[in-house]
């Protein structure tokens, strides 16, 4: 079954004004249930716009978006989405535990279950000991892990992640990628992941979608046939390097356009 389907989607911002921007044109994309898909492409090619369309934060100018067989807004009201942004976006007046509980509070989960879920999620991202800290007492990478725990807390069927590891150093980043894959294999969520990093996209994904700018289009999709589970050895695999090269070639082609 498809989790996300975009058909013939155009996105035009400020249509009919001097500031008209054609952000996306003729987008067709289907993401299967439980699939991990990365979007990669030069800055301004509409990756964030695509995530926001799927997540019902904006609506397409032309075309249709379907999520789990529903409209995006029905999916949002059914709480199908877990969002992770580039910045952790934690509420600074809430302790870590309360930040993870936030979506559960909004969904009116009862208190005992809320607490249990939050504890389990913090365990999952390795921050159980920091439940009673405030966000500013945590490093950037730890904060980002909290925001992942928060997104997973209510078991959304789709994770939308917009450059979540963009601000991290290389080592933390690789550790976070491994953790994300572990979580993904344990929860079997569908993930749409935006990144600028080729190795990150190849390491994480089932499929890497390459986009070109002005207007944003999908130019190519590369299937990543690396075996699961992926780990440190994966990054030294001959096939890993071949796939890096083919994604890089795809991006070069975009830049030469």
């Amino acid at each position, binding site marked *: 079954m498809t989790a996300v389907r975009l058909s013939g989607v155009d996105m035009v911002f400020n249509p009919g004004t001097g500031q008209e921007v054609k952000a996306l044109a003729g987008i067709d994309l289907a993401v299967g249930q439980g699939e991990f898909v990365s979007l990669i492409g030069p800055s301004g090619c509409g990756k964030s716009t695509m995530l926001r369309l799927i997540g019902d934060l904006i609506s397409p100018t032309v075309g249709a978006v379907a999520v789990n067989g529903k409209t995006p807004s029905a999916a949002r009201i059914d709480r199908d989405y877990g969002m992770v942004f580039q*910045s952790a*976006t934690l*509420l*600074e007046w809430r302790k870590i535990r309360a930040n993870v509980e936030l979506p559960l509070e909004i969904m009116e989960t009862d208190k005992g279950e809320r607490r249990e879920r939050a504890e389990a999620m913090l365990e999952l991202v390795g921050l159980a000991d920091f439940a009673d800290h*405030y966000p500013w007492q945590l490093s950037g990478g730890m904060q980002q892990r909290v925001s992942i725990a928060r997104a997973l807390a209510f078991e959304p069927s789709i994770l939308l992640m917009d450059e979540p590891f963009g601000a991290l150093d290389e080592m933390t980043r690789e550790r976070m990628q491994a953790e994300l894959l572990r979580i993904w294999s344990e929860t079997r969520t569908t993930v749409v992941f935006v990144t600028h990093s080729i190795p990150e996209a190849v390491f994480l994904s089932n499929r890497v979608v390459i986009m070109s700018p002005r207007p944003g289009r999908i130019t190519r999709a590369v299937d990543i046939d690396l075996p699961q589970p992926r780990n440190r050895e994966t990054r030294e695999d001959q096939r890993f390097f071949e796939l890096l090269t083919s994604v890089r070639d795809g991006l070069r082609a975009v830049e030469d356009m």
Partner: protein
Amino acid sequence: MSAGGRRVLAFLGILTVFVLLWEGYKWMGVTAGGVWPGTSIELPVRTNERSMPHVWDILFALFRPARRGGDLLLWVLLRAALFTWRSALLGFAFGSLVGFGLGVMFVRSPLAERGLMPYVVASQTVPILAIAPILVVWAGRLSVPRWVVVAVISAYLAFFPVAINTLRGLRSPQAEASELMTSYAASPRQVLWKLQAPAALPYLFPALKIAATAAVIGAIVGELPASMPDGLGRAILNFASAFSAAPAKLFASILVASLLGIVFVGAVAGAERAVVPQSMRLDAAETPAAVQEATA
């Protein structure tokens, strides 16, 4: 030394400087005969006992009967201050609620903001001296106690900074935080109480401090047209008309009136320390900018 200790010390230090300046100026005027030393240019303010009593005379005045055979001036003034504070407190509470409510309304409806904000700003340019008697006359038909009418006058001044800063505070969360709430399909009420209102607290408290002083001023001024005999307003008016005969009494009532304001603001600051974590507190300097921005 603790932060609290340093604050007290700084306060006392500045107080000492004020006293020294006052007495130094007075001493200079008295020894040089009312002119700048070595010149024949007159001092801007006379330094005789009728214009500038000694600081200790002002303090002594507090501990002498206000009128022959009556209570000490200090008790008279403190009673008046307490009486005025009742109106100021009610006005502060009422004004803050109205201000907060307006902020919430404006953040929800840009149309309401565009339509009403000019009136909110204009309300503060109308002199309170003109509004107060009108309110008193209007309330005359209703059987509202007069100190409550004074509270309404005080609320009229207090609501403004709270409305402006509440609005600014409710708008302070970054776009991604609002989008996060949207992605959870949170109701407008949940967005208000779980995101916007907590984010507004650091903006709200500086405004509440301004509102506290405005409420005191509003109550003192409001007592005059309401012809309240028991408050600070009447006391100040009385001592002002007797200024040339007994100047120390007017200065003493100024001292007590500002003490009232300081205690009030101090209470709000205490609440701020209890409610807003240190890492979220704003620089006090940000508030005037917010108010200026909104009135511009």
